[in-house]
């Protein structure tokens, strides 16, 4: 066992940290906050291209596809650093679509997409969820009909976050409606500027936008099919084991800010930080953050040792997101009435972030597999409890 980074890893991470510190401008942060994520706006795209030029967007990819050939651990650590700097985007292109293309895509597809992805030039958005298909991905209805040189798509997606700023849709679509569940779905890459696509905003209670995406007679070139026809469900499931990684750091930083606040704030004549109940609560959060960090780096360890994370990925997602809600709620408790004040309000503390994070955190235990689904996976896959 070994709980520290190697000297080379540390050196690389220091460079990343220095870069982030220098390049995370107020303009970038403001834009990211407005959009809800770093990618999409002018500042974000600029930042990411520069960042990616060091190979840091896809550090564990082979050099031929724009990576540095590092360990997965480094990739995880870089993402932790980004999150801590409040630019915590999970890049659909670099971190979800890219690895699937690398595993299952044709050589043509790899050649066409991987370098631009690694360079941060293109960004995808996930196109899985539909109104009737949330946790249950097998309930997809959107149809892609084979028209010879192209697929013709009709249907609707929902909760497709990022669609209004991304370039391509990483789309799950039914290609064989007569097949048994899970056997008639394919993955394809769709240019979001294609005629027939209508993206409509859905506003979340956190303030940021997700989207409904309507497809009406949208043509998708055959070459944009990922891997085999009707194998999409398998690819998605496979990818999930790689995708679920929640570095938590922006929320971890909130805890540090609240600790600092507690040290500097006197309530009823006593510094908050001397209040034993407050101390217990904040210490507990630090412990949960430490526990999550282990669940997180275990995933990297597994990848670096040729193992495929399985229930371990579900556990990390579950634990991280429940920790997130514990963090935001505790922060609100410590701040008391001041926690209720929004960014920009007179008397707001900690830049009003707590209130905003508190609202955002509601979705954490819901998106990308609810806590209930994750617990099912842990029991069934991790402990092999009986299905029937």
């Amino acid at each position: 066992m070994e709980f520290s980074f190697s000297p080379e890893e540390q050196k690389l991470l220091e460079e990343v940290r220095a870069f982030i510190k220098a390049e995370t401008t107020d303009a970038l942060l403001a834009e990211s906050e407005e959009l809800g994520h770093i990618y999409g706006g002018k500042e974000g795209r600029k930042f990411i291209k520069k960042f990616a030029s060091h190979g840091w967007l896809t550090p564990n990819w082979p050099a031929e596809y724009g990576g540095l050939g590092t360990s997965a651990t480094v990739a995880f650590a870089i993402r932790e650093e980004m999150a801590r700097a409040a630019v915590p985007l999970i890049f659909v292109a670099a971190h979800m679509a890219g690895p699937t293309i690398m595993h299952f895509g044709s050589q043509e597809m790899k050649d066409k997409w991987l370098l631009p992805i690694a360079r941060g030039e293109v960004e995808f958005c996930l196109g899985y969820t539909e109104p009737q298909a949330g946790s249950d991905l097998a309930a997809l209805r959107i149809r892609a009909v084979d028209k010879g040189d192209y697929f013709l798509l009709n249907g609707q997606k929902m909760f497709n976050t990022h669609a209004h700023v991304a370039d391509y849709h990483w789309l799950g679509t039914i290609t064989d409606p007569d097949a048994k569940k899970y056997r008639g779905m394919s993955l394809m890459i769709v240019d979001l500027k294609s005629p027939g696509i209508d993206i409509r905003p859905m506003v979340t209670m956190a303030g940021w936008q997700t989207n409904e995406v309507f497809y009406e007679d949208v043509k998708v070139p055959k070459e944009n099919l990922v891997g085999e026809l009707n194998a999409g469900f398998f690819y998605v499931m496979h990818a999930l084991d790689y995708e679920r990684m929640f570095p938590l750091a922006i929320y971890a930083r909130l805890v540090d800010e609240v600790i600092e606040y507690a040290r500097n704030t006197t309530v009823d004549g006593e510094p908050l930080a001397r209040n034993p109940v407050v101390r217990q609560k904040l210490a507990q959060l630090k412990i949960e953050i430490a526990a999550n960090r282990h669940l997180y780096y275990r995933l990297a360890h597994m990848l670096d040792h040729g193992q495929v994370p399985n229930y371990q990925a579900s556990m990390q997602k579950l634990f991280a997101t429940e920790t997130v809600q514990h963090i935001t709620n505790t922060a609100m408790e410590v701040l008391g009435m001041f926690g209720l004040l929004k960014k920009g309000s007179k008397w707001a503390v900690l830049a009003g972030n707590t209130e905003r994070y508190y609202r955002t955190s509601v979705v954490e235990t819901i998106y990308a597999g609810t806590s209930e689904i994750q617990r099912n996976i842990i029991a069934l896959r991790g402990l092999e409890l009986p299905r029937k």
Partner: protein
Amino acid sequence: MNYDLNEEQKMIKESAHRFLAEACSSDFVREMIEDEKGFTPEFWGKMAELGWMGLPFPEEVGGAGMTFLDLAILLTEMGYYCVPGPFFSTVVLGGLTVLEAGNDEQKSRILSEVAAGKRILTLAWLEEGGTWSPEGIRLRAESRDDQFLLSGTKLFVPDAHVADTIVVAARTGDAPDEISLFEVDANAPGVDITLLDTLAGDKLCEVVFNNVKIPGANLLGKEGGAWPVLNNTLLKAAVGKAAEMDGGSQKALEFAVGYTKERVQFDKLIGTYQAIQHHCANMLMYADTGHFLMAHAAWKIAEGLPFEEEASMCKAWVSEAHRKLVALAHQVLGGVGFMEEHDLQLYFRRAKTAEVAFGDATFHRERVAQAVGL
């Protein structure tokens, strides 16, 4: 022992339910969150016509002479519908304080106008460095001839920006609990009110007093003797807030349970999944326990019995139970409930606001500890 509402209470509940279903739609609630004032004169007038403004006040001052428990029943319905506006500030915070602290002239003058819907009240007690303790009140009222001079800043004063009268808790001596209450004209020179921007879009204000002159006659109750009155009001307000949460719990429960009966995943209604069933069972348990602890505290207040322990038990429990209940509703509703468009978010925002208001769970557990001899 009797856990049923009496006939009068059932009437209050049903008529409020009917009226608010009509008058207080989700659209109206959302509009009022955006609205700077946070209510409309029409809505206010209709509530006054129904006799709500005077409900807990004696008939002599134009009130309905009903009990705090009756008021709590009404607040429950208000919570169910997320009623906007300064009702709580006027009737619970300002009104009950005046009723307890004021002399006959003050009560008659102020409360009759309140009951008629012609005067909006609020109560200013919190300041920057304090929660709910007499020590936290530092704003000074200096006695000068036949007047008092107020200087200082109050925070989180609900609805001050639309209030006619602010009941202000101010320090009139150096002993920890030398606190006095004053009737202050919200439009008096030197009163400066700034609306704060909050999670729930409720209207909390900063109120700055710059040498505001208060006539001696505006002292409410005995000089330096206001802490017990203020403490009582805030405890009652805590119970009143728990009543609102009780209503909110009912609504959130309805959202969740309704959804379990229509949403299909993996070819089954989600209500058939044991995890969802247990979430809903826990919600109902939070709702029922919260309801009883609230009703018990409200009943004690209504009966004129000591209520400190029950009130703090109620607020400590409901503060957390209600938040957890709403969180479970979110978990059941999934992505749909996270959308701005769904009303559940209104209850989420109010749940946290109500949790903190008048002391959170930790605060009231400490009070319970005191009450049980720790």
